[in-house]
């Protein structure tokens, strides 16, 4: 282990270590603490330029009620969920299917296909922007949730397929062959054997895809324009214009926008980190 393990050091070194880590952590999260404090202030205090001291009297309930009831924030959150959840489910399913075929079926071009999937996922969004938007207009899907779900699923499938492929490849062939001998079709093998065995990997990629899709801003600008559909990230930008002088509300809204991925991360920490670092082990 590097650096040397602390439990073998004297107690005062351990104490100093904990103090340094906690101080650094406080500094590191100061930006989040800043908007948390700002979201509790009154408009008066902020307009006087009093941003950084301790709030004189907190307006927690008041401010958050205004954000939830008086602004489109609840609807924006719902919009984000209605795009993110279907996209995550579809991506994980489609990627697991493709990953299974690429890992366990031999056919020419399998490797090239996998490389294409990976490469496509790194292409800058701007390279796809004009044709994807035109395509959605032609399909009469522009400014609908379906457009966002369809695009996110297509784009995220690339990376997710590589991820699932690497897990499924490690399953022993004998387990699959046993099911096949009982006459199961490949789809049945996928559903009854592969999916139960790679469940943890599917959870890991689901957390990652959730974070990416929830946090997407660019495609929410490009594929959607009406308030009824606009997801939270794009909505925040619109809110900024609305709340020019009432920044405490925008701060509260930002915190609420950050909450789902952070909560997701804390509950699924092991899965997310496994997901992020898995690829690195492949390299």
């Amino acid at each position, binding site marked *: 282990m*590097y650096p040397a*393990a*602390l*439990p073998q050091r004297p107690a005062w070194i351990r104490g100093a*270590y*904990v103090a340094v880590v906690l101080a650094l*952590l406080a500094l*590191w999260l100061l930006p*989040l603490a*800043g*908007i948390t404090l*700002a979201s509790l202030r009154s408009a008066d205090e*902020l307009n006087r330029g009093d941003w*950084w001291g301790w709030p004189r009297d907190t307006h927690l309930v008041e401010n958050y009620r205004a954000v939830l009831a008086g602004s489109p924030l609840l609807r924006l959150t719902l919009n984000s969920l209605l795009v993110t959840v279907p996209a995550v489910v579809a991506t994980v399913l*489609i*990627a697991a*299917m493709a990953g299974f*075929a690429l890992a366990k079926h*031999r*056919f020419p071009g399998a490797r090239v296909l996998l*490389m*294409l999937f990976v490469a*496509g996922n*790194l*292409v*800058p*969004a*701007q*390279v*796809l*922007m*004009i*044709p*994807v938007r035109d395509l959605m207009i032609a399909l009469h899907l522009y400014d609908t949730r379906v457009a966002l779900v*369809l*695009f996110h699923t297509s*784009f995220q*499938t*690339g990376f997710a*397929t590589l991820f699932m492929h690497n897990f499924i490849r490690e399953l022993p062939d004998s387990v699959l*062959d046993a099911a*096949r*001998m009982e006459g199961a*079709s490949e*789809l049945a*093998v996928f559903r009854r054997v592969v999916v139960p065995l790679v469940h943890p990997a599917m959870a890991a990629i689901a957390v990652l895809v959730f974070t990416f899709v929830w*946090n997407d801003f660019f495609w929410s600008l490009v594929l959607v324009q009406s308030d009824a559909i606009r997801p939270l*990230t794009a909505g925040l*930008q619109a809110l900024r214009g609305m709340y020019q002088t009432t920044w405490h509300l925008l701060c509260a809204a930002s915190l609420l*926008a950050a909450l789902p991925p*952070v909560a997701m991360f804390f509950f699924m920490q092991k899965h*997310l*980190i496994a997901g*992020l*670092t898995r*690829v*690195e*082990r*492949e*390299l």
Partner: protein
Amino acid sequence: MRVRAGAARAVAKRTRHAGLGTVVLLAPACVLFSLFVLYPILRTVALSLYDWDGVGARDFVGLDNYFELFADPVFATALANNVRWLACYLVAPLAGLAFALLLNQRLAGMRAVRALFFMPFVVSQVVVGLIFGWFFHSRYGLFDRLLQFAGLPPLAPLDSETWSLYTMIVAGLWPQTAYCMILYLAGLAAMPGDVVDAARVDGAHGLALLRRVVLPQLRPVQFIVAMVCAVAALRSFDYVMIMTLGGPYDSSTVLAYYMYEQTFGNLRYGYGAAIAVVLLALMSGIIGLLLWRLFRREGA
């Protein structure tokens, strides 16, 4: 028993090769990927050869968009800013490694501490941009207050042609450092302990141990960290849109934002497509390197 083994071999032979099942399994991924990723790439390349306002007729202009691009001072600024962004992102691996070394301890509660350090990475770039926009705000921002507190004149960096780019880079470094940290932590955890122990027995310690033994062991992580930072530096659209809109006077624009602005702001779709192609060319180098690395070992 022999019959059963024979059947197993037959099954194996049948299914290790592609059949209808393969097609069914692959079809959704292939159809979606072709339609919304592959086809758009080719179409953008084709569009870059046209003059088009997005609605009317398209005029074929050959390479004219590219000739115009290379004489366009804003394009030069955008390209230079992307290079600056990339150079400054080198801080992320350094700081990330320092954090990882600091936090690579097995004490009670360390898992939670590591998670808190990692948190900026899962926060949306829009929120990060908003936070740092306030931090650097010329009227309310804490940044200028700190300068004043230190007896320095206020800088109002968001209004400055020199500094506005760097406000966004600082914002971007926050989550990017967290990401590098987590990659290094995973690398450190996966490192075989006996290598380090053996080096310790041989008398190596401190920075020498880090340089001679630990960093060489982390080579694969170093590679992925470099890739991740390079890709992130080219994906800087969100911060520009939220914090500076490329201003003041296009001084902080980047290729991704300039492409968007030309396409939807000036309705120059062909010109925008040409900028996108340049962006694709830059990314292709990174993509090529990554694929080569990723599939080299599977090649045999």
